[in-house]
């Protein structure tokens, strides 16, 4: 048991750091959590990584993965967080990609995986429905077989960044007589299909990053069914566990704490830098301690995975603690900026004005980011659902 990096790992870190320094688009530097970007901005780094062969590190090598050890992947995350890069979006890379290479057929793999690897194809996720949030399995969208097609009808919601999407993966009910989790299928839908309509939802920070997606008589070829009909719940659960494992966001939160320290060094309290105030500094130290614990917990989980265990219920702990830390970080940032938390300078996502901010730059989105990040304890299986999972799977109650 040790925390040291081998000389090979240190060399790898150097390689990664140089590659980022030389190749990362200058105009997207230090972008942080802002998302007011064009489709091209979102995909720029993804495409560069795709050409380098580094866009999907965790995938099996045969589909484009890098074959890196968990330690290398850890280094990779750290270096990207250090440079605040705009990372490939998870919908293709961490969600539908693993489902397709694990459960899809050869044709589906050949057709869909390369676009994810290269960053050419933008995916979105059609899981939640207005009446089916935490209780995902109560979804009502139907896919009815009609010859060589499914005809899909229903309404999805919280489809993140669907406004840019080329393809979506949807959970649809294919057997209306089956109970809850049975009778659901996992279907890939071309978002340009007639009958697909995407309407933005304005969020409380003022931005638009999620949508309602309406499907009206959308005809989808049966070959877009992944795995077996009515077995979609299995793939959905697989995907959710995968989604959670990345959700801890340790490296990003580390960078976030650095930024918080910079802000607090610039703000003043009683004539001295805020970060010299013991009361505030203590909160930052507590957050660092919580994050240090989460980092080791994630590394222990990774070590378990390396030893052959899949992402299990431990990932629920990573989700809970990771989002608590992310939210606390935005809360402390809001507190640090004080008076200038009040002016509204546009949302976190694509609604912001181009005006020069009132007050310091770092204050401009502090409140919006705080508001926006409340979502993290709600989405990806709410933190209450995660506690239910731990109750069942770890406590055995």
């Amino acid at each position, binding site marked *: 048991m040790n925390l040291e990096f081998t000389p090979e790992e240190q060399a790898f870190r150097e390689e990664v750091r140089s590659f980022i320094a030389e190749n990362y688009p200058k105009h997207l530097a230090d972008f942080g959590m802002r998302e007011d970007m064009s489709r091209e901005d979102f995909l720029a780094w993804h495409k560069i990584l795709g050409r380098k062969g580094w866009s999907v590190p965790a995938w099996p090598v045969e589909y484009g993965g890098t074959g890196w050890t968990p330690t290398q992947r850890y280094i990779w995350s750290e270096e990207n967080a250090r440079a605040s890069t705009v990372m490939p979006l998870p919908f293709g890379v961490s969600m539908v990609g693993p489902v397709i290479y694990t459960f899809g057929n050869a044709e589906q793999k050949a057709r869909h995986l390369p676009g994810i690897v290269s960053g050419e194809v933008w995916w979105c996720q059609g899981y939640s429905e207005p009446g089916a949030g*935490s*209780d995902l399995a109560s979804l009502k969208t139907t896919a009815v077989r009609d010859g060589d097609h499914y005809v899909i009808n229903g309404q999805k*919601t919280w489809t993140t960044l669907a406004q840019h999407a080329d393809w979506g993966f949807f959970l649809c009910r294919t057997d209306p007589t089956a109970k809850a989790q049975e009778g659901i299928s996992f279907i890939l839908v071309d978002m340009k299909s007639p009958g697909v309509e995407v309407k933005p939802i304005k969020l409380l920070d003022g931005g638009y990053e999620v949508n309602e997606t309406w499907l009206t008589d959308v005809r989808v070829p049966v070959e877009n069914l992944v795995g077996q009909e009515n077995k979609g719940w299995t793939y959905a659960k697989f995907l959710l566990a995968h989604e959670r494992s990345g959700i801890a966001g340790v490296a990003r939160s580390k960078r976030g704490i650095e930024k918080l320290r910079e802000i607090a060094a610039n703000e003043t309290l009683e004539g001295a830098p805020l970060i010299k105030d013991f009361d505030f500094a203590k909160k930052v130290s507590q957050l660092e301690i919580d994050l240090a614990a989460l980092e080791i917990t994630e590394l222990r989980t990774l070590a378990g995975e390396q030893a052959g265990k899949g992402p299990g219920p431990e990932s629920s702990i990573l989700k809970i603690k990771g989002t608590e830390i992310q939210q606390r970080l935005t809360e402390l940032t809001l507190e640090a900026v004080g008076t*200038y938390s009040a*002016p509204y300078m546009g949302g976190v996502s694509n609604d912001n004005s181009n005006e020069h901010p009132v007050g310091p730059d770092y204050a401009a989105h502090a409140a919006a980011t705080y*508001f926006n990040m409340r979502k993290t304890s709600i989405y990806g299986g709410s933190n209450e659902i995660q506690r239910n999972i731990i109750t069942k799977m770890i406590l055995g109650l």
Partner: protein
Amino acid sequence: MDFNFTEEQGMVRDGLSRLVREQYDWETRRKAIASGAGWRPEVWAQLAELGILGMPFSEADGGFGGGAVDAMVIMEEFGKGLVIEPFVPTVVCAGGFLKHGGTAAQKEEHIGGIVSGERVFAFAYAEPKGRYDYADLETTAKKDGSAYVLNGHKAVVFGAPWASHLIVTARTGGERRDRSGVSVFVVAKDTAGITTRDYVTVDGRRASEVYFENVSIPAEALIGAEGEGLALIELVTDEAIAATCAEACGAMKVAHAMTVEYSRQRKQFGVPIGSFQVLQHRMVDMYTAYETAVSLTYLATLRLGSDEVERKKAVSAAKVGVGQAARLIGQEAVQIHGGNGVTDEYAIGHYFKRLTIFDSEFGNVDHHLKRHVALS
């Protein structure tokens, strides 16, 4: 000891409650915020008509002789409807400075306009580097013959876009952060040399950055004694804190009720989410926090007339306790609303935003816990 409201206070509450319910519906509020003006002068006129704007002034000054408890009753109703009109800057702050520090001439000049709704004030005290210290001022007022010349930059002056007049704090002597040397002035906003940058705030109000460049004002603009303004500022802001706490209590009451109601309606796993014990107990904790906030707001309000240490301790206790309750209730209300809680469409998010900004007004939880410790 007496914890009952007077009959008159009950009538004020009922009247305001009706006004908010009937004329301050959610869609109208939303449109007002998005409009060019950003507020509803016609509501302001109605408040004047109802006597609300004159409530805390003595009858001799043209008001209705109300006190801190009346302001509390009024603010709680405003909080329930997230009323954005500038009662605190105009009536509580400017009114407070005039009441406690104004000369007969100043009262004569301004109070009538406040009571009638014609004069709207904003209170320009915060500065970019001053945080929550009223004495940490870079804005200066230099004596020039019988006049003063103001220079400086005031940050996030709530209600300034709507104001005809400003109350301004500035340093007339001493070093930055000294207790002495702080003075208070009343200034017409259209005085030469004052410029503003106006904007919307995240909780739907309006505010300005206010810049003073060699603004010449007469000696009669000084409220209270030169250089002795800090004690007056502390008294008036303590009154403003008590009023703002009452507003937060109103907002929390509604946020809690909305959440309980949502939990009754919203079904998941075939049952209302309000049937889940975990959410029940969390809503109980929200309720308990709300009751705590109400009690501390009563305490602060009833101690506004006590000696300085008692007053400050009670007010700081309230700002701490209400701030903690506001954070808990705001965050939990959104969480229990789930995805809908983070949309612009649902009202709950707007209560959450108002309750968030509350903490940064007149000193946050940490600031007031420190003040409480210093006084203990």
